[in-house]
């Protein structure tokens, strides 16, 4: 459950952003959470809900989560497949089992709306 400490890191960033922009209330946060980031979206949301309830700046803010896609390259024929869903079990072209993922490890704060 490292998601809580990641949410704490997020709140630290939000605090600095709010200060720099002279804002006292954040209304919406957009995050990009890659399927290979090791972060469970539900746990992240859970941490966000719990911590934001006690945080004057973030209280009531909307958390929008976007899942970026991953490109899997076949080690045999080089075929590339891009998906934000589960890793394909095999190459769709040649059936090879070994596919190398690219991307999908991101945990990015993309956009913040504040008042």
């Amino acid at each position: 459950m490292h998601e809580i400490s990641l949410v704490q890191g997020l709140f630290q960033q939000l605090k600095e952003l709010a200060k720099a922009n002279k804002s006292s209330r954040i209304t919406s946060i957009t995050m990009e959470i890659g399927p290979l980031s090791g972060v469970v979206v539900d746990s992240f949301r859970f941490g966000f809900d719990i911590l934001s309830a006690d945080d004057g700046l973030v209280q009531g803010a909307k958390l929008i989560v976007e899942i970026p896609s991953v490109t899997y390259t076949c080690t045999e024929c080089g075929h590339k497949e891009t998906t934000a869903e589960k890793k394909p079990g095999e190459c769709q072209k040649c059936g090879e089992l070994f596919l190398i993922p690219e991307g999908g490890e991101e945990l990015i704060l993309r956009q913040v709306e504040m008042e």
Partner: protein
Amino acid sequence: MCETCGCPSPSDHSNSKTIDVHTSLFAANDAIAKANREHFDKTGIVALNLISSPGSGKTTLLEHTIEALKGEINIGVIEGDIETEKDAERIRAKGVPVIQLTTGGACHLDASMTHKGFHRLEKEEGGDAIDLLFIENVGNLVCPSSFDLGEHERVVLVSVPEGPDKPAKYPRAFISSHTFVVTKTDLLPYFDFPVAEATGDALHLNPRLKTMALSATTGDGMEAWLCYLRELVTEMKVNRS
């Protein structure tokens, strides 16, 4: 009507603004990890981050590794645990510099703890002449895999009693690692652990993974592990000369 959310009062949003940020939540950790790695490179230290479930035999493997490489490679150890000095005491008994990091509840080490830990280690006897640094992470196959500590290689371990399904169940640890070690192979006669299935699943997730299987207690398979460590240390020395 307000265009932002459809509420009937546009004035409520007159002060609202949208800011594009695009920074990673790992950015702060990654920056410290990078500085750690640069420091290790500068001082010629190979750093390994050991990740596994509790009880997979990380400390036992380290004890036997220290014995086997005594007089050949100077080893230093950073032990990560939630509580107690027990692991550090076991390693200290082998006569190498070691410090214990207790996270006090946190389920993983991060780059900042590693940074502080390493500077403490440097002050220990022999801590200024380390060739090979083992960072034994908190026993957990999930959270440690998301935090770069500044290591050169990440080693994930699974012991035979845990079962062969760990790579399939905890993919991130295997995707982010360089090396996969099956430990306690002396117990293979008593458990249903097809080594080929476990390593096959791991390679399916990460085709670049180096794999090995060993028993620290009997010494079976240890030579491949020791060769791997020797090669890393030699490579570091060659790169620096």
